[in-house]
Structure formats: C-alpha cells, structure tokens
C-alpha cells in the first residue's frame, strides 16, 4: 500500500533537500536502508495515530521556521559538575570548545570518523536499535535522522566512567537545522552518565541509540534549554540487558515545539528502566512525550513519570505505553502522567496504554489534570508565604516525583535551581 499522493510528494520534496553523508559501506547501507524506511512511512500527519496531539508541520517543512537567538543560560546547565564537555554549535561539533575527548574506559569518536572506518563496533547498533523501534509504531523522523544525520558522536563505556559526559548544544543561527545521531554502548558491568543541555538549533532532530549490556548502567539527564523558540523532535532507543539499569530524566522549560520519543526494550531478565520528565511551559509552547516501553524478559521493572506545568495557552501531550510480551512474567510496570494547569487556557492531552500478554505481572497507570490546590495555597499564605512563592512551592511539590528520579543529588539540585528560577521569571 502506497502513501497518499500529497504525503508522498511532501516526503519526496523533503528527501530531495537532504544530502546523505559519505561513509564506509556499512554506514552507506544503513543510511540507504533508513532512507527507504523513511520513504515508505512518509512524513507524519495529523491523521497518524501517534500525531493526533501534535502538529508536525514545522518538523515536516523543508526549511525550519526561524528561531530568535537568546543569550545562553547563565550559568549553563551542569556547569558546576566535573564533566567532559562535547560542544555542538547549531549541530556542528566544535573541537575547540570541547574538552579533550580522552577518559579512562571511554571510547568516543565523532560520527563522521566512525562511519568512515571499514570495521567499527558502532556498525552493530547504528540504525539497528532505531529499526527495532519502528515496530509497531512508526517513527519517521528517526529514520530520517539515521539516513541524513550530519554529525554526532559514538561512544562506548567499558568500565565505570568517573565523569559524566556532557553534550552541550548551542544555538547561534536563527535558521539552523541540525540533525544529530548518537550511538552509545555500555559494556557489561560498565557505568555511564550522560548529560545533554541547550536548545541546539532553530530545528533539532536528534536520535540516540543506547545499548546497555548485562549489568551495565546508564544514567541520562537532559535540560533542553530554556525560553527559546526551537522546534525539536528527539528519539531515544534503548535496549537493556540482564540486570542492567537505564534512567533518563528530561527538563523542558519552554521552546516552541518539543516532541520527545523514547522507545525502551527490556530484553534481559531483572533489568530496570525509569524514564521521567518535567516540563514547564508558558505561552507558545507545545510539549509531547511519546514513550513506548516493551517488557520482553522476566522480573523487570519500568517506571514512567511525566509531569507538566502549563499556562497561557501552553499545551502538553503524553502518549505512553507499556507492552508486556508473552513470557515477561513478574513484570512491574508503572506509568503516571500528570499536568498542573495554572490557568484555563492551558491544555493537557494524554493517551496512556497498557498491553499485557503475561499473567503474572503488576502494571499500573494513571493520568490526571488539575489546578493549584486552593486550600493548600491559603494554608501557606496564612503562614506568611506570599501568593507567588506559595504557588511556586506547590508547583515544585507537583514536579517532585519526576525530579526524584534523578539519582545524583548534585544534578537534581542543578535541575531544581533551574526550575526555581524559571518559575520566578514566569510569575503572574
């Protein structure tokens, strides 16, 4: 069955405007295959089941809408941490601004270098986890990314990496269109913390494939810039081995459009996957979390915790699924998506889904939309706390469950500070 003509034309036009990078034959094959996948799926439209809540027009367009430049956050996220920084300016790696990419137990390479090598460990992952994540739900922007990503990094942790790796995305051109692809391999028993921060570009398409081997541990914390006009579509594809741990937290503070997809597959027994997000939006803001967690092993635990605070017409969307495959007994799955609407103009759309083919599992999900608790607000004010400070306290309390998913206290404090200052800036 082919695509409708309009969709097929738009897809062909978009393809024609993109250039596939050179590479070794394995990379070329992976990219060609991704391009073919993308053509078969076509650009998304509002009629597609998983795009009902989010208008993909600006992501589909050949040129991104312009996004004004704002001075970078001061201090930038994670800057107080001892970390290894990898800097991208509008989606282009900047070696001068980056730290020396050498750390014990870590192999790290620019994507363009890795894909030139005839033999490379990344060959077994590049586009591979993305392809696995295309079934049963299509993710055309991820396929587009695999085919046309112009930059990125591949990295492999072979032991416990002592410093977090920090991808810092600077936005310096009003019309930049960045496509970045990352491949991460956490070897058996290794540990890696990955940080991402910054708005990145006027339009940002990012895909990250993460393979966590048995007993490996991957922690991911990102702060997607703040108060900018960027449009972004991001994908995390993760595959988890036995007794491995995956934890991901995302802070989004404004930005015109953000679609964060996560596709997590628990393939080894006793693995743990937690994914959380805190989004705060004021005004022209659309934030969409689309999450798909597949349990395909015994005794695994997954948690999805997504909280959104919205006002002045901001829109939040959540589409979250837990799929428990046959034989994935003793699964413990949890999903919560909640919004706090600070006025009557904000909107939250949610589609929680459970699909379970095993009989000995615990799965729960919940989704709520609410306003500030007036009783609590009065109680705080009656003790002398100002109305705005009291509201901020209640907002942070609402977000607490998501922030608690950040294991490192230092990083959690950094995120909390960012939230607090955002709330102060967006009072009234």
């Amino acid at each position, binding site marked *: 069955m082919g695509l409708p003509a309009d969709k097929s034309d738009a897809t062909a036009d978009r393809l024609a405007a993109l250039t596939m990078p050179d590479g070794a034959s394995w990379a070329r094959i992976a990219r060609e295959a991704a391009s073919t996948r993308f053509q078969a799926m076509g650009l998304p439209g509002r009629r597609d089941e998983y795009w009902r809540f989010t208008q993909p027009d600006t992501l589909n367009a050949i040129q991104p809408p312009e996004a004004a430049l704002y001075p970078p956050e001061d201090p930038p996220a994670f800057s107080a941490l001892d970390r290894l920084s990898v800097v991208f300016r509008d989606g282009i790696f900047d070696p001068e601004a980056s730290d020396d990419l050498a750390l014990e137990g870590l192999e790290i390479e620019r994507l363009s270098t890795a894909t030139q090598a005839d033999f490379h460990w990344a060959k077994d992952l590049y586009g591979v986890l993305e392809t696995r994540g295309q079934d049963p739900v299509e993710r055309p922007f991820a396929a587009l990314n695999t085919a046309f990503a112009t930059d990125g990094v591949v990295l492999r942790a072979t032991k416990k990496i002592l410093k977090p790796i920090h991808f810092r995305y600077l936005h310096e051109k009003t019309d930049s269109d960045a496509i970045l692809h990352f491949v991460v391999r956490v070897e058996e028993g290794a540990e890696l913390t990955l940080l991402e921060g910054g708005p990145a570009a006027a339009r940002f398409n990012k895909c990250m494939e993460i393979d966590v081997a048995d007993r490996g541990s991957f922690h991911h914390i990102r702060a997607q810039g703040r108060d900018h006009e960027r449009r972004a579509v991001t994908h995390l594809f993760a595959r988890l081995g036995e007794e491995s741990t995956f934890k991901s937290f995302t802070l989004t503070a404004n930005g015109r459009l953000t679609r964060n997809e996560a596709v997590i597959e628990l393939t080894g027994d006793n693995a743990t996957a937690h994914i959380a997000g805190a989004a705060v939006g004021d005004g022209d803001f659309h934030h969409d979390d689309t999450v798909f967690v597949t349990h395909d092993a015994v005794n695994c635990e997954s948690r999805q915790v997504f909280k959104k605070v919205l006002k002045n017409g901001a829109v939040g969307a959540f589409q979250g699924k837990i799929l428990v495959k046959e034989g994935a007994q003793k699964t413990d799955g949890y999903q919560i998506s909640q919004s706090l609407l600070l006025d009557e103009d904000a909107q939250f759309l949610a589609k929680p889904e459970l699909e379970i083919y095993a009989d000995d599992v615990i799965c729960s999900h919940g989704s709520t939309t609410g306003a500030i608790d007036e009783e609590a607000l009065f*109680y*705080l004010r009656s003790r002398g706390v100002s109305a705005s400070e009291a509201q901020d306290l209640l907002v942070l309390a609402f977000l607490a469950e998501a922030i608690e998913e950040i294991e490192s206290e230092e990083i959690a404090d950094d995120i909390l500070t960012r939230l607090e200052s955002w709330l102060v800036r967006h009072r009234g």
Partner: protein
Amino acid sequence: MLNIKDLHVKLEEEDKVILKGVDLDVPAGAVHAIMGPNGSGKSTLSYVLSGRDGYEVTAGAATLDGADLLVLDPEERASAGLFLAFQYPVEIPGVGNMTFLRTALNAQKKARGEDEVSAGDFLKLIREKAKSLKIDADMLKRPVNVGFSGGEKKRNEILQMAMLEPKMCILDETDSGLDVDAMRLVSEGVNALRDAGRSFLVITHYQRLLDHIKPDVVHIMANGRIVKTGGPELALEVENNGYADILEEVA
C-alpha cells in the same frame, strides 16, 4: 490587640449572611474563648479574620493593633502577627514540613524588614520547640501534615505557632479529634506561649479545652452574633446546661 466592630459577613457565592454584627475586643495578653452551637459563625469569623477567599464583608471593621486587617492579603495578616490554628490542617504532599516553616518564617521576617534566620539557627530553634511538643525528627522531615494523625496535625499547628511567634493566635476547634493526652500536650504548648504581649482567641465547642487553657473571658456566639459575655463560669454553664438556656435568655 484584636478589635472587631459590627462585622457583617456573607458568603460570596450565595446570598447567605453568616455574621450579623460581631463585636469583640481582645486586649493584649488576654485569652478569650468563643463557644457556640454548630452553625453560629465561629469558624467563619476565624476564616474572615485570616483572609480566606469566599467571604464578603458587607459592613464593620476588624483591626489588629489598630491596623485594618480586612484590606490585607492573608500573608500580610500573618506578617502583621495574626495566626490561625486550623480546625482541619491542610496536607501538602511534596512540601517538606521544615522547608515550609523556614520559608514562612523568613517570608514574615523579610516582610517586617528583619534579618532572615540562617539554616543552622533555624534547625536549632525548631528542634528545641519540636521536642517540647513531642514532634520527632521524622515528622519534621515529612511533607506538611501528610500521613499525620489528627493529634499530630494539631501539634504541628502549635509548633508553627511557636516558631512564628504571632501576636494574635486564633485556635479554631483545636481540641477536635484530640484524645486526652494529645489535648494536654497541645494545651501545654499553647500555655507556654502565653505572654503579656500575646493574645488568644480560642474557639471551641467544649469546656474541656478550657480546663487546660484557662480563658479570661468567654463569649457565646449564636446566629452570627456574640450574644453573651462572661467569665470562665460561662463555659461551665454551657457544659452543664447546653446552649438552650442561654439562647432563650438572650432571645
């Protein structure tokens, strides 16, 4: 200290008049009690004084040390020295009890132009006050009133009162839901705060609480007005004969 003159209050949303001309004068250092049957307007009086939404003052005045209370926001009333111990203290998940109290204390100090309390000094102070109210470290760390028993919630109110050191304390049925031991603890907490510069307005249904917190003056409230004022013996009369006699007498 607290001066209420001919206060008339109706519900904002409906045409229901609750207070129909309340007059009350609580001097500095005094403990006044208000008793009265259900629906007489006792709790409304406490809410109106503390600035809760939903009420409309149609006539009259209320001042604290001469300052017009009714034009102030709830937080300004608190900084001016007014404190309401809630009948039903509110649970606030996600906000730690200590964070809450420190934020409140420093907000009040800031509003009054005083220096804020350092984290260290605050900790020392709250530990000392919590100890006398038998509030343990775990309760201080927990979210505000979440998972607290009825008695614990009321003790927590008194702890807040002790920390914030208000001039005018209104206790709205602080005895409700308390067992004998908890009532003694709470009363001891209140009595420890009695001071020549601090006044109390104790709202209660029962004389029992007034055995522990001895009032100077007892008022009987009925149908939105204070209908009788007397000494502590008035509370005993209510305890023995109920409100019927008094209400008949003033009718």
